[in-house]
């Protein structure tokens, strides 16, 4: 199968993620959309790796996964503490950048 198709898929996933980040208020959903975008990038990296015949892209993908995992930890912690104090997970409620 032509690897370019994977790139199209990655672009599609990225667009879905970006749209979600922009239009959804719920922090959890925004968060999942961010993950979606990250994974879209991963897909693109792997596809490029295949196209160029070296492993650089795959290595970067692993890095991204590690960073994403760390981000999940911090992000979820923030969302949980936000939810505890406000009983809502809307990102717009936190516009003052403080609890």
């Amino acid at each position: 199968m032509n690897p370019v198709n994977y790139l199209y898929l990655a672009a599609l996933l990225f667009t879905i993620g970006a749209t979600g980040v922009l239009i959804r208020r719920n922090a959890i959903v925004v968060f999942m959309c961010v993950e979606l975008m990250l994974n879209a990038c991963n897909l693109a990296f792997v596809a490029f790796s295949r196209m160029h015949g070296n492993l650089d892209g795959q290595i970067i993908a692993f890095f991204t996964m590690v960073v994403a995992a760390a981000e999940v930890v911090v992000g979820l912690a923030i969302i949980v503490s936000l939810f505890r104090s406000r009983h809502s997970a809307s990102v717009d409620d936190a516009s003052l950048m403080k609890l």
Partner: protein
Amino acid sequence: MENLIALLVAAPLLGAAVLLCGGRRLDRYGHLLGTVLAAASFVIGAVLFFDMLGRGAEERALYQTLFAWVPVEGFQANIAFQLDQLSMTFVLLISGVGTLIHVYSIGYMEHDERRRRFFGYLNLFLAAMLLLVLADNYLLLYFGWEGVGLASYLLIGFWQHKPSAATAAKKAFLVNRVGDIGLSIAIMLMFTTFGTFTFGPVFQELDGAGEGTLNAIALMLLLAACGKSAQVPLQSWLGDAMEGPTPVSALIHAATMVTAGVYLITRSGAIFNAAPDAQLVVVVVGAVTLLFGAIVGCAKDDIKKALAGSTMSQIGYMVLAAGLGPIGYVFAIMHLVTHGFFKAGLFLGAGSVMHAMNDEVDMRKYGGLRKYMPVTFVTFGLGYLAIIGFPGLSGFWSKDKIIEAAFAKGGAEGWILGAVTLLGAGITAYYMTRVMLMTFFGEKRWQPAPAADAATDVEPSADHHPGELPHPHESPKSMTVPMIVLAFGSVFAGALFSFNSSFVHWLEPVTRFEHGHPPVGAAVITTATVVVLLIGAGIAYAQYGRKPVPVTAPRGSLLTRAARRDLLQDDFNHVVLVRGGEHLTRSLVYLDHSLVDGVVNGTAASVGGLSGRLRKLQNGFARSYALSMFGGTAVLIAATLLMRGV
């Protein structure tokens, strides 16, 4: 021998330093220390004088270089002295009269709690004045020039608690500073023209400079001289300077400091000789001041201010003579020396009278004092005869020569100048006779002393009893002795100088000398002078001797009223300079705040406004940030692609 020169300056300088830094523990004998050091300076001067007499006329000058003062690339100023006949004359006059006035001040300032400081300032003045006349270059001369200005400032304002004294002191300093601009620029011009401002080299290089430059230098020097010597148009400070203690008026504002301008012109004679246009201006300034001072002197009722007007007028004579060139320099200096004697004597006499009359200065409240103060009367009287040029006394010899030299200028100028000097002699006789009659003759017009004012409670008078009539008495020995010595000078100095033309021969190597040839005989001029002075004295006698003098001044003619106000010069200054200056500074202060600061603050405010608008973007909504981020990225990518495409 030349190593002694520095000591001339060092002795009074040491006195000033010790007295001013020494504190109260020197109060008891500080005045003696000051007097001894002034006398030391005179003794050193005398030693050097006799040493100088022992040498031939052309080898008399001595030089001493102490150290390099301002050594900078291309610019060399030394602390170096030059003692020639001209400087010697001044050294003896300054330290001699200075010492006498120190002695006089011991008595005069006896009851002033700040007497030590007064002597410190007097010593400072002597040091600066000696530096002025001993300097071998113009920059060092400038040092002394400003130094005497400082001493004059401190001494005029000695009774600082009186606002009038403080104002007078400030005025004197400021007007002198205007003159100092002239000296500064003259030095700069010399530097750019000759590359030096040391007397000798400058005078040797004169040929290489254009006449325009020389005229400019000479005019700038004249400006300086006008400031220091109270010549029109910078004369306005001298009358106010009489706020200082009387010994100060005698020493600084009559005998020595105010004559520094004449010294400057004479010292720079070589430059003036090469700048005839400037010389003409000098003569005009001298002639105008001569009449100006004399007219002012006629109208003043304050004895010291009348004498101040007279000082101005007499210095006008000297400046006029100096402006005449080699015909006049010698006589300018000769008149300067004799004037130093008789004017100092007159001021000391005036101080003695004031001392006796509860510090009253209004001559209309004197009268009939000759019986009560015989020594003062006689010495003052001799000074009076000398200043009006009574034949045989000092003033006669020197003034007569100046009148002759004025006529000898030749042509219409000669006649005009001669007439002015003759007229001046007549007016001098008039106002001095007036002073004499109002003070020592006629009825007693004494007034009770005014109630002591809280602000003026430290006047130097011994017995100041408010509400009582004064008890005139002769002054103590320390005051009368200097007056007697000066009276001797007033009587005999002129004759001594003129005997065998000794003074002319003495100064000739420095200033050069040419015999003038007046269009009429010398005898005619002398006779005319005597006639004119008799007329002047006669008018004064008719007005003030035969009729009683009213205690309150009559309104007087327009001229009299103008003359009482120094011919409106102060009013002019006030309206144009003081008021105008105030408006200028006030509007500038306003502009600085509103315009200069405003423009900068306005810029800051507009930056602030921009940031206020930008701040609205920072609303805290994470999704709008995300949108701008995506938008920005999209724009960047699009831009990159477009650039590639191109």
